[in-house]
């Protein structure tokens, strides 16, 4: 038993270590002036995608439910946090504190949305759940497109129609302008903040998996009827995984929103949800460390290959296929287990 505990602990430490090592390497490159400005601009989005992938893996891999609406929760987190920051940017001038609060607010709102949406949709299974979550993701995005909120000397004004029906003084300032989104959010996000968010996300997800509730979540994934027969409330644990996952996606959204001058809802469409799912699947369903690596490689690769112009998508496709074989082909898995077992453990083994 202690051996098993130690292995889990070591596996977790390796995952944190990879993230920290990557951070140090990037810092070194940057201070040596070896990082292209393109890559430098990609650092925060990279962190966003890692957090998204890890949090989605909690639902897809650990809870065993196919969700295609992850971008919707990211959207909630992005807008609520950016809205908050715009409200308080003149009162709270310490950007670190302001950003910390913004992330908490983004995560909290996204978590609440996750809970509220989860209650009806988690009754569905398999393909039905996938379709309904996809729909909810799109609905959230479209609702965010509707909001016009502004502030003038008389206070706050809101409309769901357009800017002019808000009845705001001409000197008033728009905070959210419908499809044009939120502009003027201070750029509080940084690579360091992103890496910290990744570490916190990993800490929460890895520890949840390796706890009493995490075991219950996985038991329900493996056999729902047996789980009920030993007294587990299926809905409670499915909701728990879904809500935590949504909250973390909201935090990723907050990070994303504070890295952009203009935040628009159209970014949070199903393409983003599907892309996140691709990271999860290629990194290995249920394999948290795999999600981190897949998100980094598949986000950075297209940029790194830009110089190769015509061959870029070709190489990208080859990498996708190689990753798929590496993580899913039975023969390769066997070989990996034998020779690299210590370094590459699939999620299944990881949660032993």
């Amino acid at each position, binding site marked *: *038993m202690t*051996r*098993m505990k130690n292995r889990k602990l070591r596996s977790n430490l390796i995952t944190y270590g990879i993230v920290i090592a990557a951070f140090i390497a990037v810092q070194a490159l940057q201070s040596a002036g070896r990082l292209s400005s393109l890559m430098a601009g990609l650092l925060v989005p990279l962190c966003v995608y890692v957090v998204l992938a890890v949090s989605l893996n909690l639902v897809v891999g650990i809870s065993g439910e196919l969700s295609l609406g992850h971008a919707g929760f990211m959207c909630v987190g992005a807008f609520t946090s950016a809205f908050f920051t715009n409200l308080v940017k003149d009162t709270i001038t310490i950007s670190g504190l302001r950003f910390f609060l913004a992330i908490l607010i983004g995560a909290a709102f996204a978590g609440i949305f996750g809970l509220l949406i989860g209650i009806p949709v988690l009754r569905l299974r398999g393909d039905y759940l996938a379709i309904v979550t996809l729909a909810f993701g799109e609905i959230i995005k479209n609702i965010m497109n509707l909001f016009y909120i502004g502030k003038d000397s008389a206070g706050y004004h809101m409309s769901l129609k357009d800017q002019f029906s808000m009845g705001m003084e001409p000197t008033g300032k728009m905070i959210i302008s419908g499809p044009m989104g939120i502009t003027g959010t201070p750029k509080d996000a940084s690579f360091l903040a992103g890496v910290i968010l990744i570490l916190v996300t990993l*800490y*929460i997800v890895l*520890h*949840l998996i390796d*706890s*009493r*509730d*995490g*075991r*219950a979540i*996985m*038991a329900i*994934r*493996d*056999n729902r*009827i*047996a*789980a*009920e*027969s*030993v*007294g*587990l*409330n299926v809905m409670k644990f499915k909701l*728990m995984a879904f809500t935590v996952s949504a909250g973390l996606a909201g935090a990723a959204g907050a990070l994303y929103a504070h890295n952009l001058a203009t935040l628009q809802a159209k970014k949070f469409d199903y393409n983003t949800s599907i892309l996140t799912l691709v990271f999860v699947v290629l990194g290995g369903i*249920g394999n948290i460390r795999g999600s981190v690596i897949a998100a980094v490689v598949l986000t950075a690769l297209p940029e790194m290959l830009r110089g190769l112009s015509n061959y870029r998508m070709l190489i990208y496709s080859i990498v996708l296929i190689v990753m798929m074989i590496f993580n899913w082909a039975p023969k390769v898995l066997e070989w990996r287990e034998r020779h690299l077992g210590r370094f590459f453990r699939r999620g*299944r*083994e990881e*949660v*032993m």
Partner: protein
Amino acid sequence: MAAILEVNNLGISFGGLHAVDNFHVTINQGELYGLIGPNGAGKTTIFNLLTGVYKPDEGIIRLDGQDITGRKTIDINKAGVARTFQNIRLFHQISVLDNVKVGLHNRYSYSTVTGIFRLPGYRRTERLMDEKAMELLKVFDLDTSAEILASNLPYGKQRKLEIARALATDPKLLLLDEPAAGMNPNETAELMETIRFVREHFGITILLIEHDMKLVSGICERLSVLNFGKILCEGETSEVLHDPEVIKAYLGE
């Protein structure tokens, strides 16, 4: 003697089929009771009714005097009924130890926050759960397999793990659905000993479905024989097994 399980007039139909019709049984504290009958007689359906997987069309189920008819599976488990499945249903992608710890879930508690942030209660409770789970695994000679994935256990051990997991919920009544299915005679004999031991050691009542007559006649004190959803015969094991009706309907030539 106090009745642990009292079932009266239990019935359910699927479409036109009366899968279980007017079933009744009274099982006393500490008894080892058998439920036998040909394929499709309705035995597993009775387990599903007793555990709330199906809601009965009619009838009353009392556990230790408490009416549990129509309650949800998880509440019935909390009231003290645990079971195994004819088609093994393990949590196959988690370890053998964790399968039993899931069974312990409702008996040891710490909050989600304690689990995530590793607050003091976490380590203590997990250690208690580990000890309890290992104790249960030992009963079934599974302690040396604690760390492997449940799906990697050989078939016979998977059946034992299901029993260990069920016992982890601390039931008053344990329902075993064909526990010896797929076992060789040696394993079956060993299982008989284990079932007896479990009854003594945990002081529980056991209702079991089994096709293996040696096991049934070896450990069951009383039996009910089911045929086409109806009780054909019931009583002391030796008497029931010599009943001409039973021999004709079930035991065959």
